[in-house]
C-alpha cells in the first residue's frame, strides 16, 4: 500500500482535506492509504519514518512557523528522492522558484481558490501519483544521479537525451534532458560504465537512444527528440545500427 500523509494546522480545514483525500483514493481506485493527518510539526515528525514511496500533502505555514512545510518537504525529499509532494497553501506563502529548486513538488494547491477547487485538485493529484508510481517501476535504473558540491541531483532517465563534454571546459559533463541543461564534474567513462543503457557514440558523447528519433548511417548523424543531433564515430556505426534494429524489432513485436 502506498502511504499518504497530510499536514495542516487548521482543524476545520484538516478535517475537510482528510475527507477529500479518502474520497479521492476511492474514486481513483488507487492502492493508497491515508496513514495520518497531523496538526503540528512535532506530531508529524513523531509518526514519520522514511518511506520508500509516499504522497505528502503539506501546508506551508504551520502555526507561526512560516517555513515548517518547506523544512519537512526538504527532509522527505532527502530521504525519498521520488516522494510525491503537494503543497496546500495560501498564495503569498509561496516562493515558487525556491520551492521548485529545493523540492520540485508535484503540485501546489492554492487555498485562495476555494474548497471546491481544492477537492478537485486533490483528486487529480492522487491520480497523477498513481500514474507516476507505475512509470518509475518500469525501469530498473530510473534515475541519473550526479553531485555538485555537497548536493545530490537526480534526473529521470526517461528525460535524459545526452551527456557530452566540451574542449573548453575540461572535466565538466553537460547533460541535456527534455527540459534542462545541467553541468557537473565527472568523466563520461564512469557514466558509461554506470549506466549501460546509455550509448557512447563518440569520444565526447554519451546518448540515450530511447530519445533518438532518426539515424542516417551514411552521414552517421543521429537526431534526437529535442532537435539536437550528434555525429557517430566510424567505429561505433555498426554497433549502433545493430542496437537500433534490435530495438525496432522489439517495438514491432
Amino acid at each position: 500500500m502506498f502511504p499518504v500523509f497530510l499536514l495542516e494546522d487548521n482543524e476545520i480545514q484538516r478535517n475537510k482535506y482528510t475527507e477529500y483525500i479518502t474520497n479521492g483514493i476511492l474514486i481513483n481506485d488507487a492502492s493508497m492509504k491515508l496513514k495520518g493527518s497531523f496538526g503540528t510539526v512535532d506530531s508529524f515528525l513523531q509518526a514519520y519514518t522514511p518511506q520508500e514511496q509516499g504522497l505528502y500533502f503539506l501546508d506551508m505555514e504551520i502555526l507561526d512557523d512560516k517555513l515548517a512545510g518547506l523544512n519537512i518537504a526538504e527532509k522527505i525529499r532527502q530521504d525519498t528522492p521520488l516522494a510525491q509532494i503537494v503543497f496546500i497553501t495560501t498564495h503569498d506563502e509561496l516562493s515558487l522558484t525556491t520551492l521548485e529548486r529545493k523540492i520540485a513538488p508535484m503540485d501546489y494547491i492554492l487555498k485562495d481558490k476555494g474548497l471546491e477547487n481544492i477537492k478537485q485538485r486533490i483528486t487529480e493529484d492522487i491520480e497523477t501519483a498513481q500514474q507516476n508510481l507505475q512509470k518509475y517501476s518500469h525501469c530498473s535504473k530510473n534515475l541519473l544521479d550526479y553531485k555538485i558540491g555537497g548536493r545530490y541531483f537526480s534526473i529521470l532517465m526517461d528525460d535524459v537525451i545526452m551527456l557530452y563534454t566540451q574542449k573548453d571546459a575540461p572535466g565538466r559533463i553537460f547533460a541535456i534532458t527534455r527540459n534542462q541543461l545541467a553541468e557537473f564534474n565527472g568523466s563520461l567513462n564512469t557514466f558509461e560504465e554506470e549506466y549501460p543503457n546509455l550509448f557512447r557514440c563518440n569520444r565526447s558523447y554519451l546518448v540515450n537512444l530511447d530519445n533518438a528519433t532518426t539515424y542516417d548511417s551514411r552521414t552517421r548523424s543521429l537526431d534526437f527528440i529535442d532537435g539536437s543531433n550528434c555525429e557517430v564515430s566510424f567505429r561505433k556505426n555498426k554497433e549502433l545500427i545493430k542496437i537500433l534494429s534490435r530495438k525496432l524489432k522489439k517495438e514491432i513485436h
Partner: protein
Amino acid sequence: MVYIDWQLGLIANFFMLFATLQLHHYFLKSFSIRYLISDITLSLIFGYIGLFVDDILILLFICFILLVNWIFAKKHQLDMENSNSLIMAANVEVVLFSLGTYTARIIFFVANGEWKLRILEIYQQNFITVSILINLIYLAIFLLIIHKFHAQIVKLWIQIEQYNLGKRVFEMSFSVFVSFMIILIISDLQSVTATIQASTILIFSVVLIVTYRQLIFFIRTMAIQNEAKEKVVYNKQLNEYLTSVQQQYTELRKFKHDFQNIMLAMKPLVDDSDSVELKDYYQDIVQERDEMCLVSRGNIAQIGAVDSDPIRGLIIQKFFIAKSEQIDFHLELTQKEYHFTNDTLVIVRILGILLDNAFEYVKGISDKEVTCAITQTDKTIEITVDNPIKENLNFKNIFKSGYSTKQSHSGFGLANVRRLISETDNLYLETKVLHDHLMMTLIIVGGD
C-alpha cells in the same frame, strides 16, 4: 649685486605683484573692473615699497592681503579657497619670475660671450624687458598646462571643500611659500652668487612640484577614505530602513495569513446559512481579499539577508530598474542569512547578465514577471533567475555567441556567462524549462 634704476625696479616689482594677483583671479575665475583697479593700485604701492625691502616684498604683500582678508572676514575666519589660491599664485609666480630672470641672464651672457654681471647693468633696460617677456611666456605655458587639467583641478577644489581640507592645504602651501621666501631673503643678505641662488631656486621648484603632487595624492586618499566612511553610514541607514520595512511586512503578512484562514474556515458556515445578506457580505470581503494579495510578494526588504555588498547592490539596482520598466521583480529569500565568500565579482557579473536577459525577454511579452531566488545549503549557494518563456529553447545553442530569442538583440550575454564559468572551477549553471518558465540557476560551490 646688480644695481638697477629705481624706475625699472618698480616696473619689475609691479609686474610680479600684478601677475600674482591675476593668476589668483584666474584660479578663482573672478575677473572684474573693480578688482583690476584695486590690483593696479596695490601692485604700484607695494612695488614702490619693494624698492626698499627687496625680496621680502612678496612675503609682506601676501601677508598684508591675508591680514586684510582676515580683518574684514565674518567672524575673522579666513576664506580658505581664496587664501589657498593666493598662496598658490604667489608660489607659482615667484618661481616663474625667478626662472624668467635667470633665463634672461643666461641669454645676455651668451649673447655677449662674457659671464659678468656688469653686462646686465649696462643693458639693464633691455634686460628687465626681456626677463618680463620670458616670465610672460612661462606664465602662458603654465596656463596652457593648467587649462589641460582643468577638469581634474576643479574636481580637486571641490574635494578640498567637501572634506574640509582647506586648512591643511593652506598650512602646507603657506609653509612652503615662507620657506622659499626665507631662502631668497637669506641669499640676498649673504650676497650669495647668482649661480647658487639659481640652483636653489631650481631645487625649490622641484620641491614645489613634488609637494603639490603629494598634496593632490593626499587629497585623493582623503576623498576615498571619506567616501568609504560615507558608504558605511549609508549602508547602515539602508539596513535599518530595510529592517523596519521587513518588520512591517512580517506583521502584515501574519495578519493576512490569519485572515485568509478565518475566511476559509467561515465558508462552510456561510454556505449553510440562509441569510442572503451574510452571503453578500462574505462575497464582498472575498473580493477585497484579492486586492490584499498584491500587498506583499517579493519584498526588497529581504535583501538585507545577503551579506555581500556588491551582490546586494546589484540586486537593489536591478530592482529599481525593473520598477522603472514596469517589470514585476520578485525576490525570494527564504533564509535569514546568505553568506558569500569568494568570487563575488564573477557572480555579480553573471547575475547581472542573467537578470538583464530576463528583463529584456519579459519586456517583449505580456507576463512581465521576473523572480530571483537564492537558496543556501551548507556551502553551496544557488541563485535562480526565473522568467516566463513562450517558445522552445534549444539548450545546445543558447550559449553560442550571438544566440538570442530576439532578432534585434545581440545575444552575447549567455556566451559571456559560459566563458566566465569556464574560468572558474566552482561555478555551475543549470538551465531548466518548467511550466512555461525558464529557470537559470547559478550554483556556487563554496571552499573547503
